[in-house]
């Protein structure tokens, strides 16, 4: 349960290897690489032959966001002994390659995701399209908690929101960023904050570093 008590707020946990999977697909962005190396290490201990059926998709930089830091080199995945490790320049490229892999995969796959929270949400959104359930995909936050915010009024999505209140990129309304989350939309809900008293807004502060 979260501070707000809203049950849809995703709760992510440190990645654990699932040796029951037949194949393993790891996605990471920037500092998420460390978490992927940890889970690969665990997998190697539990089922060493599984690494020959394991693939890594990784972007050292988070695309638009700067100073993400804590990246790992592609070579470190190869050193663990995975079948394939592919590097990308942005989150978007990782997600596109991931979608291609899902489209050609067969049952028995386990997906592990590590990176900024918004990246996790987008990866899970794609997984839902392929009917991956909670026992097939797991995710760990590594990096920014910046949110994708869906305006409940105009339905535009504002990216990379770090503050409790934000101006909607679509309609300009001032939105309060709720913990109410949609896995299907991969976004938190934003609700107009000054509807009763126009212009009267609580103080804006950084809430999602």
């Amino acid at each position, binding site marked *: 349960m979260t501070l707000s008590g809203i049950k849809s707020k995703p709760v992510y946990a440190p990645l654990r290897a699932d040796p029951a999977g037949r194949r393993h697909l790891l996605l990471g962005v920037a500092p998420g690489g460390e978490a992927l190396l940890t889970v690969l290490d665990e997998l190697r201990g539990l089922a060493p032959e599984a690494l020959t059926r394991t693939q890594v998709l990784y972007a050292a930089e988070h695309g638009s966001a700067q100073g993400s830091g804590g990246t790992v080199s592609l070579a470190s995945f190869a050193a663990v002994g995975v079948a394939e490790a592919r590097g990308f320049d942005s989150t978007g490229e990782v997600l596109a390659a991931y979608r291609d892999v899902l489209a050609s995969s067969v*049952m028995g796959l386990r997906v592990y995701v590590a990176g900024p929270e918004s990246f996790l949400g987008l990866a899970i959104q794609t997984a839902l399209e392929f009917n991956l359930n909670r026992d097939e995909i797991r995710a760990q936050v590594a990096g920014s908690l910046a949110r994708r915010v869906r305006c409940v009024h105009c339905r535009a999505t504002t990216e990379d929101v770090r503050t409790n209140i934000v101006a909607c990129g679509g309609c300009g309304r001032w939105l309060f960023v709720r913990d109410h989350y949609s896995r299907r939309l991969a976004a938190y809900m934003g609700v107009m904050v000054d509807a009763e008293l126009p212009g009267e807004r609580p103080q804006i502060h950084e809430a999602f570093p």
Partner: protein
Amino acid sequence: MTDGQTITVDVIAVEQITPLVKHFTLARPDRGNLPGFSGGSHVVVVMRGEARVFRNPYSLLGPPHALDTYQIAVRRMEESRGGSQFMHERLRVGSRLEIAHPVNLFALDKRARKHLLIAGGIGITPFMAQIEELRGGNVPFELHYAVRSREHAAFAARLHERAGERVRIYYDDAGAPIDHDGLLAAQPLGTHVYVCGPAGMISRVTEVARRWGWPDSHVHWEQFSAPPVGDAFEVYLARAERRVQVLADQSLLEAVEAAGVDVPYLCRGGVCGFCQTRVLELDGELLHNDHYLSDAEKSSRKTIMPCVSRARCRNLVLDL
């Protein structure tokens, strides 16, 4: 679920469709619509024999959109306790029956990107209704159906007519069994597998699925256990303050019901968990036959599914 909430139906057609299987068509006496149901649902049929009452679950196999009748198919069991025998020998066109409302413990997962249905013998029945749901949609499906021989292949013609090439029938006497590994190794992501048939088939399919990395949430199975015959035993019902004898060929649930104590049930086959009952005292051992309780619950000696499980005991007190 007491008998007060049942639906009265008449048998309006009986057909022997294989040497072991009879097909019954049921309708309301006034021919009004029956309650709606989804593919995979079953009804419990109440059979009032001379000496006792049987209540057996049977899958509804007609199209879910046609509610003027219900169709069920009953395989005659060699070591029947009397239920399937009653259905085969006593029911005629015009016989009146009580049935419970439909319940679905084996529903299709509508989020699936593909459905893989695997049937053995009389286990074909829930899939008959499910393919009616699936054939109009755009989610791909396959039905693999294993039977002893051509004469035992219930509904073969109807299946081919309704689902064409998406149905494949395997005849044991032709020596070409279902290749479970081949089927489960290469299904697209988002496939769900459903299996209904003999216990051996269900354990084989679930085991092969696990070997290929299928997660539990994509593997579905249904098997109604008939209550096994055992030794007679005695049970004390704490709340009713009654002592009840359970006969050798009677289930614990039937014995309790015969004593006039109602226990809520849905499947009567050890699947749904509805009749789970607390064990208050036990001197002896519980003989668990259900597919519902976990191993830990079974060994706790604190709980029992009276629809299929029994006891070998000097003293057993239930919270009933």
